[in-house]
């Protein structure tokens, strides 16, 4: 295990797009806003999680979200998470658990103990919330346990835990057979959230406003999808490195005009770049897919390292939390809450039908296959972050299954008798291992070494491709 404790400030990462470069200040701004709001005390602040399809509700009620995953990520990117992780560990929490949560709980405990922000908190720190909205998704345990653990240090801050299940993919059952009662449940859960927020803010929900906001985020959603599809261009105008920045409006700013405007700008910028034939890398040699895993926030520079070898990332499965609405087979409804619940179900089951059609496919594998083709992918890179099971379990198997069912690549190799012969090989892939914010699990030397070897692999595929 290599340890880069208290690393000096990481070098500023070069972005390919202006839009991506504008993200840093943006995040700082909304963290600062939460601190200001806390000081003024006019608006309610809520801890909450991304991918819950509930932003519209919060924004309509003028609640300011404090994205706890975001703050942990910021600590990670600033290489300043270690002290909070250690705090959490000293409470008895194992480092094998979600380090976002550990960082958050460690921070909360410290802030509550001091009665003020811990010294030199990244970007001023995370404001104390008025309430917390956690999420008992089928997706992730820590998101349901985290705030409960934090509550130990601020018992006066109430929690509302929204349960948001979705039907897991079963090969032999159409999800539509069951999603009726899923929808019913989710609607009740979301209405429960409305009631909770109404009680906390002593305000009534303005459903017209909610409807507008839902409409706004639907439009944004579609716009994001259109924008990201532009990355299919060769050379690719924007890579995953940048997408790890542009995820900010997707994850933390939905249901705001600003998020919409951001993507209008980005779309324009990409279109211009494509017109000029300008790629993320100067001489695009390999097109890679970030096929799974949250990034190591303290090591985003690794994307530039890939770029320096001629590798570009036109697509990633991470933080692409949208799917084109018109392609989702979900019922129409006028009720915004019901729509949110359908959108939720539509999003999670988006690949199910397609996967059921291809023998031995599975939604995650299906998505890989589709994008390999649409984005002309030469290789897959995944990141296995040890502390988060949600996004990092199943990756090995997905690659394995992909190799089994997806058309192989013909390569010319020297056979037993020395003559060249054609063999069929699976798409090259690389799994990097470290963590989202625990830098002690990361070794730059090892990672770069692996990247080098992977590039050599890609090169040998390129040179020996039979047809």
């Amino acid at each position, binding site marked *: 295990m290599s340890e880069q404790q208290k690393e000096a400030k990481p070098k500023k990462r070069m972005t390919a797009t202006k839009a991506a470069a504008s993200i840093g200040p943006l995040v700082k701004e909304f963290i600062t806003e939460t601190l200001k709001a806390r000081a003024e005390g006019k608006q309610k602040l809520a801890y909450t999680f991304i991918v819950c399809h509930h932003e519209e509700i919060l924004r309509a009620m003028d609640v300011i979200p404090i994205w706890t995953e975001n703050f942990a990520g910021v600590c990670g990117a600033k290489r300043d998470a270690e002290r909070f992780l250690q705090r959490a560990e000293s409470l008895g929490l194992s480092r094998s658990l979600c380090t976002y949560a550990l960082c958050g709980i460690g921070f909360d405990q410290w802030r509550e103990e001091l009665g003020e922000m811990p010294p030199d908190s990244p970007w001023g720190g995370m404001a104390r919330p008025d309430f917390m909205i956690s999420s008992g998704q089928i997706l992730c345990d820590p998101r349901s346990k985290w705030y409960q653990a934090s509550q130990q240090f601020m018992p006066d801050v109430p929690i509302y835990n929204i349960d948001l299940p979705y039907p897991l993919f079963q090969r032999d059952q159409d999800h539509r057979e069951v999603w009726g009662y899923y929808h019913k449940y989710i609607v009740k859960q979301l209405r429960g959230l409305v009631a909770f927020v109404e009680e906390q803010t002593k305000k009534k929900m303005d459903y017209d406003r909610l409807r507008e906001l839902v409409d706004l985020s639907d439009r944004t959603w579609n716009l994001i999808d259109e924008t990201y599809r532009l990355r299919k261009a060769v050379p690719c105008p924007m890579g995953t490195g940048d997408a790890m920045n542009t995820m900010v409006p997707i994850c933390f700013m939905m249901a705001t005009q600003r998020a919409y405007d951001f993507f209008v700008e980005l779309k324009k910028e990409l279109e211009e770049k494509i017109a000029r034939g300008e790629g993320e890398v100067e001489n695009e040699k390999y097109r890679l897919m970030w096929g799974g895993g949250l990034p190591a926030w303290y090591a985003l520079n690794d994307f530039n390292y890939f770029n320096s070898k001629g590798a570009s990332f036109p697509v990633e499965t991470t933080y692409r939390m949208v799917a084109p609405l018109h392609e989702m087979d979900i019922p129409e409804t006028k009720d915004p809450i019901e729509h949110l619940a359908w959108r939720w179900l539509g999003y999670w089951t988006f690949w199910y039908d397609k996967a059921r059609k291809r023998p031995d496919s599975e939604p995650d594998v299906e998505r890989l296959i589709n994008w390999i083709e649409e984005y002309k992918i030469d290789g897959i890179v995944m990141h296995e972050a040890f502390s988060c099971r949600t996004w990092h379990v199943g990756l*090995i198997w997905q690659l394995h299954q992909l190799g089994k069912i997806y058309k192989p690549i013909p390569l010319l190799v020297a056979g037993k008798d020395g003559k060249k012969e054609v063999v069929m090989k699976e798409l090259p892939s690389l799994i990097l291992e470290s963590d989202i914010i625990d830098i002690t699990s990361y070794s730059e030397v090892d990672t770069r070494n692996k990247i080098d070897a992977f590039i050599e692999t890609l090169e040998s595929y390129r040179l020996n491709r039979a047809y």
Partner: protein
Amino acid sequence: MKIDEVFSMIENQFNQYGSRARQLREEGRKVMGYVCSFVPLEMITASGAIPFRVRGNIQEPITLGDTLLETIVCPYYRSCFDLSIKGRYEFLSGMVIPHACDSMVRSYSVWTYSLPYSYFHFVNVPTVCEESSFEFFEEELKNFKRSLERFMGKSIEEEDLLKAIQLYNQNREKIRALYELRKSDPPLLSGTELMMTLTVGSGLPVDESNEWFDRVIKAVKGRSASPLSKGPRILIDGACIDHIELVKLVEELGGNVVADTICNGTRDSFPKTEESGDPIRALSRRYLDKLNCPKTYRANKAGTFEGDVANRFGDIGAYAKEFRVDGAILYVYKYCDPFGFEVPARKAYYQSIHVPMLHLEDTYSAGNLGQLRTRIQAFLEMIGGLEEKEV
């Protein structure tokens, strides 16, 4: 039967876990594998299939399993998968996996695509426990029922379900009776013996399991003396402990394991199902509300931390009193999210009830047991006096 005979047969079955199930399969029955306490066994039994708890093996290194499943999955569950993929449970017709933790949910596809069974089902258990969750869970159970009916080719009638509920309630009563035998000091039934008995039971059809429990109860009641000598009385707190090594180690070092909260113990065995009214509704209440697992989020109704932990962990305090516990071992696997996040709160709770607690994080491997040894011995030294042990 003589007591030695009973236990040597239990030990035999423990070591050849699955042999009876294999036999039943050969006789044409369908055996349905499951993990965790959240799968309603009543439903499987009512369908005519035999539920079989899939176990890991702490003595066997995980090899083949690691080629498909990341090592960041909880090691106990990895071991279960490893044995399955090595063909140890080839006699199963299917597998039912519930939504208990991320390890289970996220690896569901890996299981279903890698194992040769003809049936798989995922039971989506809600994370919260409210009126709407019960409604949802009832629907989910009905879906499970339909799915089983399709697979078994016969419908599950209400009386089948009721009968199964009764059988399982009896089973739980018998387990309760087994626990009663641990109340004396030293306990008449050792922790190792109990763990073995319960494990054997989880691999048998429920009626056979009931017979075995009766045999053990009868034999132990006839015992003139405890197999253990007096020592600190220990409660084991934790998740799925399907091996006897931990308990054995504690008892070897002079502690007596008298109670637990584990999934293979009281968590699953103490709560009973309502026998009147709609059976599906009754099952949804039992599994969602009565199973006290950290997986299910329960809102803090007290408004204080102390009140909240008293609500969430009250059963621990009750067992501690009932079984006159001197100390507790909180045994959590690395990478287990539901339990891992509760360690600080549990710690605080133990402090509030004045029961000393040792927290162990384990990796479910025999190689690691040596490291637990010193910790456990020191803990026993810490809570037990020096003098009383000598004769």
